């Protein structure tokens, strides 16, 4: 049995309850009072001390409001011609997306980990054993989604555990529990996959044809990663959410690199041997 998340960004309201619930349950330290000045997102990115992060993407459809804009009509979603030739189609869209560890099927961090600290647990989640990790930091640049980082003053690497402790007690993860709109859904990966397809179909039927699932072997879980246990329903290019379209498994080329290097070693040995000839 594999468990995972399905994060439906179309119903996310950006309340950050998941961020708070995660911090509280997992007793994660604060990251400081940093103001990005870019948006209402002052968390910025996932890290060793932030395992849920809500991205705020401002994305109005009509870019210009010209002439004498009737703000009441605007708020009421009026689409007929407005006085003064103002152009608009509602207030546009403000997208939110609650990011989390992707729990890859073939996890690059797990393959990079030299100590065997990163394992797959009985729920098929990617889990860092904190009593084994020696803080070498090699999983950090290996992650194609920038999820893991080393925690200062602790030295070890941390990331979302998918609330391993709660799952063992039969509870859903803290973020999914706290989510007021059910944007974060927790369950078995197979069920979530079906749910995601149904939901995308529903959105397509309503006219939102740009909706798609990210984290499948086709998009977002590509290049040898084999899909993710944390899937997302997105409405925009993955890059807008700071996600790669076609990430890859960095360890895919380890064998090739070793073969190429062995050939090079042979050539260098021959060059040195030739230098001995007078």
């Amino acid at each position, binding site marked *: 049995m594999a468990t995972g998340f399905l994060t439906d960004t179309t119903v996310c309201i950006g309340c950050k309850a998941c961020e708070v619930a995660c911090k509280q349950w997992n007793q994660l330290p604060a990251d400081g009072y940093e103001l990005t*000045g870019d*948006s209402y997102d002052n968390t910025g*990115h996932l890290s060793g001390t932030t395992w849920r992060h809500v*991205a705020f*993407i*401002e994305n*109005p459809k009509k870019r*210009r409001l*010209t002439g004498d*804009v009737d703000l009441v009509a605007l708020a009421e979603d009026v689409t007929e011609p407005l006085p003064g030739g103002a152009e608009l189609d509602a207030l546009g869209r403000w997208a939110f997306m609650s990011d989390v560890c992707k729990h890859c099927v073939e996890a690059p961090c797990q*393959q*990079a980990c*030299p*100590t*065997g600290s990163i394992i797959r647990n009985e729920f098929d989640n990617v889990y860092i054993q904190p009593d*084994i990790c*020696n803080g*070498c*930091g*090699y999983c*950090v*640049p290996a*992650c*194609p*989604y*920038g999820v893991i*980082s*080393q925690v200062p003053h*602790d*030295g070890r690497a941390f990331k979302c555990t998918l609330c391993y402790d709660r799952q063992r007690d039969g509870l859903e993860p803290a973020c999914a529990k706290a989510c007021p709109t059910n944007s974060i859904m927790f369950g078995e990966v197979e069920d979530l996959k079906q749910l995601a397809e149904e939901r995308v179909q529903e959105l397509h039927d309503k006219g939102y044809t740009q909706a798609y699932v990210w984290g499948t072997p086709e998009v977002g879980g590509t*290049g040898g990663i084999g899909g993710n246990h944390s899937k997302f329903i997105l409405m925009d*290019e993955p*890059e*807008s959410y*700071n*996600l790669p*379209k*076609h990430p*890859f498994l*960095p360890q*895919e*080329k380890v*064998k090739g*690199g*070793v*073969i*190429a*290097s*062995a050939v*090079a*070693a042979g*050539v*260098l*040995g021959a*060059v*040195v041997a*030739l*230098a*001995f000839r*007078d």
Partner: protein
Amino acid sequence: MSEATSESVQQSNGKVETSHHPETDPKRKDKNYYGIPPIKRAHWTWQIPIYFWLGGIGAGTQLFATVAQFLGHEDEALKRASRYTVLGTMLLSPILLIWDLGRPERFYNMLRILKLRSPMSTQSWSLFTFGNLGGLIAARQAAEDGLLGDNPLSRLVLRLIPARLLTVLVLPFGLFVGFNTGNLISATSVPIWARNWMLMGPTFLTSGLSTALSWLSLVLHLGRWGEEKTLRVLHRAEKAVIVLEAVLIALSLARMSRWSRPLFSKEVAPLFVGGTLLGGIAAPFALLTGKESRSKSVLASVLALAGGLAFRFAMIIAGRKSADDPEAYFTFASGESAPQPEDKV
């Protein structure tokens, strides 16, 4: 950033824009999330490039020593210098690596498992093997040199350690330490490193051999040790390996293409262009091609050694900049450029 935002809110023509999202802000053509890096960079500080440099010197020294033994070139001074060099590099390397750990007291967990797909794991094991076997060979050398005194232990070392056999056995592990420093950084999500997966190992090994030859030549010249022939061979080999190194770096740059840009940035260019290409390759090559002289040889060796160190620092710092650049990562992870499973080796 803040300037662009305030302008886009109220433009001079009276048109109002409500957003500074990259798609809607005419001043921000880049397609990313407020420029926040989508991947995290490696934390590696100065210990790691120095280790890469020392590991390369150890690997190259072992290669030269084994080839010399294989071809029946028995120069006691060369043997002594190479064995103690390997010992020295293999004593310093683990110290630097453990220093760099977030939890240094747990360094032994590196040898908890063997994972062939993790270059960090294979690196730990090859370093462990190379260091221990190299240590045994150096112990034998120390006993031969009388450094262990005349006691039962020393006699035991002389009787039990088959230095000539070990010199052959240790070579694959030494070479692995040398090239795996390159493979280690290329098995990450950092565009500039990952893009060059095929040539990173060969380039690091070749550069390591170049620094090793320079080191041996420097030591033998400064101590006025070694046979005439050893110095001649080192001189020829240095020249040839520097050419190979230049070719491999050129091919790597071609392979990295647009993602090699950090190497030529303001911060890294002095190290890469000045320190590596000019100071570590062009200058030593020019010094080695002219009429041979002791002082020129010594200067060439020093420059090549410094160039090798500069190259490793340049690669690590360039990797940091590459990871911090959303545009580099997103163009890299958008399709054809990233390594794919179906790619041929």
